């Protein structure tokens, strides 16, 4: 055997509850974070990702306690992201029981924080989250793709998918790796919430550019979507939320399905 593909339930947390949105908008409640974390951990999830999408900084202060509570009930790796701007934010999360810290907007605004974190805590703690969206307005110095006769590139978005940066996702991912990222959490904004499958073009482009692990995210609606992304790209992990939260498929069901399709999983 060898290294398995990781199946990662994601908990988007807002004001202390797990929520799920469509295309980063229209949010609905999906349960209690500690309960869901316990359940996924016991069912054989390979890792948990916990994204704090609470809007304001005051409300975010409570996230520390929640991280601690979740960390005390699980015995699998645990990544926490959302609103991490500084070294202090990251330290706070790691000292409260997270194994890795995810940074998105904070890393775009201040890329040096990637290197600082790496030097202090080690590369394995540093997950750079990239939210990317197709942009059909092709400009110079971007990585151009063709699909259905149309040219486009992938633009990095920040502030939870609200604001374009003009940055090319492929170029940014390479820079993040060079600065000290240990892993990339790659979300397709176009696909997120659609249950239409992962963005294969995006995932493949980033995976083939980097030598650090990549987690595919956005668009998973059924186990077959995971099979597809693992067969068509060399991605290391697949993240999903709604298929696990609403009991459409349990973690065990998904992993059994993948194993039958010859995808190496821990089961």
């Amino acid at each position, binding site marked *: *055997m*060898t*290294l*398995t*593909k*990781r199946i990662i339930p994601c908990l988007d947390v807002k004001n202390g509850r797990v929520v799920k949105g469509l295309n980063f908008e229209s949010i609905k409640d999906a349960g209690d974070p500690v309960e869901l974390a316990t359940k996924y*951990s016991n069912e*054989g999830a*390979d890792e948990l990702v916990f994204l704090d999408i609470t809007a304001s900084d005051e409300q975010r202060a409570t996230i520390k306690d929640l991280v*601690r509570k979740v*960390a*005390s009930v699980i*015995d*699998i*790796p*645990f990544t926490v992201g959302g609103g991490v701007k500084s070294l202090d934010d990251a330290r706070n999360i*790691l*000292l*409260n*029981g*997270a*194994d890795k810290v995810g940074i998105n907007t904070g890393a775009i605004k201040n890329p040096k924080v990637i290197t600082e974190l790496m*030097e*202090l*805590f*080690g*590369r*394995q*703690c540093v997950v750079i989250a990239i939210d990317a969206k197709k942009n059909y307005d092709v400009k110079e110095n971007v990585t151009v793709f063709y699909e259905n006769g149309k040219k486009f590139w992938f633009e990095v978005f920040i502030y939870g998918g609200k604001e374009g940066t003009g940055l090319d996702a492929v170029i940014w991912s390479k820079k993040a790796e060079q600065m000290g990222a*240990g*892993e990339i959490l790659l979300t397709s904004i176009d696909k997120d919430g659609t249950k239409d499958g992962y963005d294969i073009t995006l995932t493949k482009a980033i995976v083939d550019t980097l*030598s*650090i*692990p990549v987690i595919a995210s956005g668009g998973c609606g059924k186990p077959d979507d995971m099979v597809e992304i693992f067969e068509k790209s060399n991605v*290391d*992990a697949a993240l999903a939320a709604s298929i696990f939260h609403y009991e459409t498929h349990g973690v065990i069901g998904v992993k059994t399905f993948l194993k039958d399709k010859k995808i190496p999983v*821990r089961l």
Partner: protein
Amino acid sequence: MVNVAIFDYGAGNIFSLKNSLERVGATVDVITDFDKPNEYSGILLPGVGNFDPAMNSIRDFSKTQFLDYVGNTPVLGICLGMEMFFEKSQEGQEKGLGVINGEVIILPNSMKVPHMGWNDLEIKKPGKILEGVDDGSWVYFVHSYRVKPTSDDIITAESNYGIKVPAVVEHENFFGTQFHPEKSSTVGKIMIKNFLDVCKR
């Protein structure tokens, strides 16, 4: 009740390790130097940080040398903690603890580095940490370096990541795992418990 100490290099999450020890019945102190007498049944060197800063924190902040402090107390080194048992590492310039002959080398760049995720164990020989652990068990790795002991005799289990990665080493009262037992679900829990059993003896 078994009382153990985690040495904190000041570099990240030791909460999970502390938690995993407490779950199997240990009481845990976190220490940052070796200047008080050693009253512990076991000592843990956790797996988060960088080689040089971690070695410095072990070597430079105490009047007592680590190995004098430890004596015959069982020590579990996890990931970086295990790497520090060796003489030197390509991750840094500092000397290691040198309790095991050999060095720590970087994973080849033909592989994805870090080696991150669940890999299965190939058990080479019986060992105290591996009691009750099945061959082929899944454990969680996250590392960019691997150990290269002078003698393979101390390796009780390895993992195949395209290349062979020594996964568990045992030498006298020093036990090391390249993976993170505290993050390796029920299999990891067995190993943590095994270590505490060694501590009780």
